[in-house]
């Protein structure tokens, strides 16, 4: 018999290296004659899309398009150290470093622009739509490219280099007390599963996933992180296991270590919850790792909802489910 059930899973995740370790990201920025920009950072895009996030942030700060920002990353001869592509830290940490480095380049640009536009202070200047404008008097403006090339001919240079460090403290090794991570990301997912009571097979039919990431700098990429996280959660909960014999891996191939195929995936509804984090770039936190965490629990809880057995050891294999069902029917 096939039985359906739904389960809820929640999780939290402290982003960053944490525990008082100096979690530092750095970036170099240069604004070119035509108003396009180079951002150099050690932060590596491992597929999650960090370079796109940095381009968006720099573009937003300078009133240009992301396509006009070239992000150069992960070359130790060229880029400053920005720490590991890990710990759900690049959007928050390196994003903040990019903002700070851009701010430096921007500060000299605004000072120059204030003079050029006869404004009393750089605070009165804004960068929008490829223009340098006086706040409140948008007709008083110059094209960004024109201003930058003119300034450069006069010997001005618009560069920035800065670092950002996330705030944490080391926990007391005797009591575990401290403020080890900041910020925390949160997520909640509901999974609907179908369990075959005769074969023990579980199919995950649907997952709704809500994740608080502070601010979705790129919703397209955020949705991609959630779906990818769910896939790894499905694998974790149901399929994957490195099997050992005397410490040696017995299944070191893709025909034996099974990850989900497209046909093993549920229908996904991704919901982006934006609780602004004031210290983040545009209020953003992070999403990469948290995306997979609630899936594990939602599936296990849904199995229980469907057939009334509690799986406490992962993966929830058909064998374990049948054994649990048999145990249950004895009672």
């Amino acid at each position, binding site marked *: 018999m096939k039985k359906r059930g739904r389960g809820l899973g929640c999780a*939290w995740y402290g982003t960053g290296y944490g525990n008082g370790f100096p979690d530092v990201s750095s970036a170099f920025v240069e604004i070119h004659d035509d108003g396009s920009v180079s951002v150099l950072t050690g932060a590596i895009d491992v*597929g999650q899309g960090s370079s796109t996030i940095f381009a968006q942030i720099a573009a937003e700060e300078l009133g240009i398009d992301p396509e006009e920002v070239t992000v150069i990353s992960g070359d130790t001869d060229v880029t400053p150290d920005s720490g590991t592509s890990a710990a759900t830290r690049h959007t928050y940490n390196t994003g903040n470093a990019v903002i700070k480095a851009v701010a430096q380049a921007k500060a000299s640009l605004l000072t120059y622009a204030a003079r050029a536009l006869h404004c009393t202070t750089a605070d009165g200047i804004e960068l929008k739509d490829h223009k340098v404008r006086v706040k409140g008097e948008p007709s008083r403006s110059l094209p960004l490219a024109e201003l930058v090339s003119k300034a450069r001919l006069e010997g001005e240079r618009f560069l920035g280099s800065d670092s950002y460090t996330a705030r944490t403290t080391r926990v007391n090794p005797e009591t575990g007390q401290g403020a080890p991570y900041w910020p925390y990301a949160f997520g909640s997912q509901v999974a609907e599963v179908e369990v075959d009571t005769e074969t023990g097979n579980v199919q995950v039919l649907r997952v709704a996933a809500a994740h608080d990431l502070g601010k979705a700098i790129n919703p397209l990429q955020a949705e991609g992180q959630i779906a990818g996280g769910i896939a790894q959660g499905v694998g974790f909960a149901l399929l994957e296991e490195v099997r050992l014999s005397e410490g040696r891996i017995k299944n070191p191939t893709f025909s034996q270590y099974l990850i989900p195929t497209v046909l093993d995936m549920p229908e996904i509804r991704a919901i982006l919850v934006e609780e602004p984090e004031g210290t983040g770039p545009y209020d953003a936190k992070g999403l990469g790792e948290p995306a997979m965490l609630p899936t594990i629990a939602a599936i296990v809880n849904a199995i229980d909802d469907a057939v009334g057995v509690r799986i406490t050891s992962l993966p929830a294999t058909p064998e374990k489910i049948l054994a649990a069902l048999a145990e249950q029917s004895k009672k």
Partner: protein
Amino acid sequence: MNGTVGGTVGGTVGGRVLREDAWGKVLGQAAFPADVRREGQIYAVAVRSPHAHARIRGLKLDEARKAEGVVAVLTSADVPHNGHGVLYRDQPVLVQDHVRMAGDPVVLVGAETLAEARTAAGLVEVDYEVLPGLFDPEEAMKEGVPALHPEIHGSTNIVYHLPVCKGNVAKGWAEAEVTVERDYQTQMLDHAFLQPEAVLAYVDERGHLVVEVATQYAHYDRGEIAHALGLKFNQVRVKTVSVGGAFGGREDISLQIMAALMAWRTLRPVKMENTREESFHSHSKRHPMRMHYKTGATRAGKLTVLEARIVGDAGAYASWSPNILRKAAIHATGPYEIPNVRVDAYAVLTNNPYTGAMRGFGAAQPVLAYESQMDLLARELGLSPMELRLRNICRVGSETATGQVLTGSVGMEECLKAVKSYLGEVSAR
């Protein structure tokens, strides 16, 4: 660019901006490390231990050295500083005498072609004295058991222990009207990124060592390569090419130092490419964890106390284990306010494949335990899983088990509300 491709939707920040590197990826132009080549490159292959725990009594390398196409056969004697690691340099580039896990590299063979390198690697004879291994972390953490890294961690295999103590556990139990106690277990996982490790290393026209690789942290790799080879940081350039998935599995050193060493010694460009099987044997894994959980709540559905013991199998090398078990301990309560907490988390060395970073980093495994506990408690209390959570979740101003006050963005309640309609009637139980 092609003007017909629909571009950014919405503003710059907050917009559905298309990633620039996707162009090269859909066109097949993006270069992953296996795709880069250099004139005159040779191939290197590592000979890895099939045994999880062994002493090396001797090496016979003559046949391999004489084999067709072989350029160099390197051993631990060729490594100036034979260690690397993210927290402790406890992992040898090439094992000298003590094999601690199956897959430990022992000999490195370089040859003109990949086939010749593999053939020659097959001719290397390693004389192993197989030792009894420690495969169960509960066993390995007992006193008197042989320590795997005495020079670093002394007489114990426990590389890390963190207690998290909050409030008064006895008081918490006194207040608890309902208790749920269970053992949970998670398995060892592989990152299974689609792109197996590969690297191209060469000495450039400046005499600098260049290593092109897919990594999560080029600057770390540079430091470890420079250290192992006795070079200055500025003499080593780590250049990241396209990374075919990582998920934590490219944080530790895999092939980087070996390829760099071979290139430095032979002055030839050196290519290394793992097969999928070699990949399984050569990068870290997710920590299997055993978690004992005991949770108490009042009839009104307020959590009063949690006691948990978490043991993570670190495998043969520490990698990030201390940080991972710390993260497990700190996240052990889940996103809930619990006034009285005692958690003990341990990372224990064994002769299993070493475990390290993987998406979730120690905050993943406890989710199974704390969320199962919540559903079991809800059932005991006759509350819906949603309701029990809503009564206990962290909100702005909540204090975590480590005493941290959550001052900023805490969107747990919004997330729960957002998925509530998807729970429907089915899970009223």
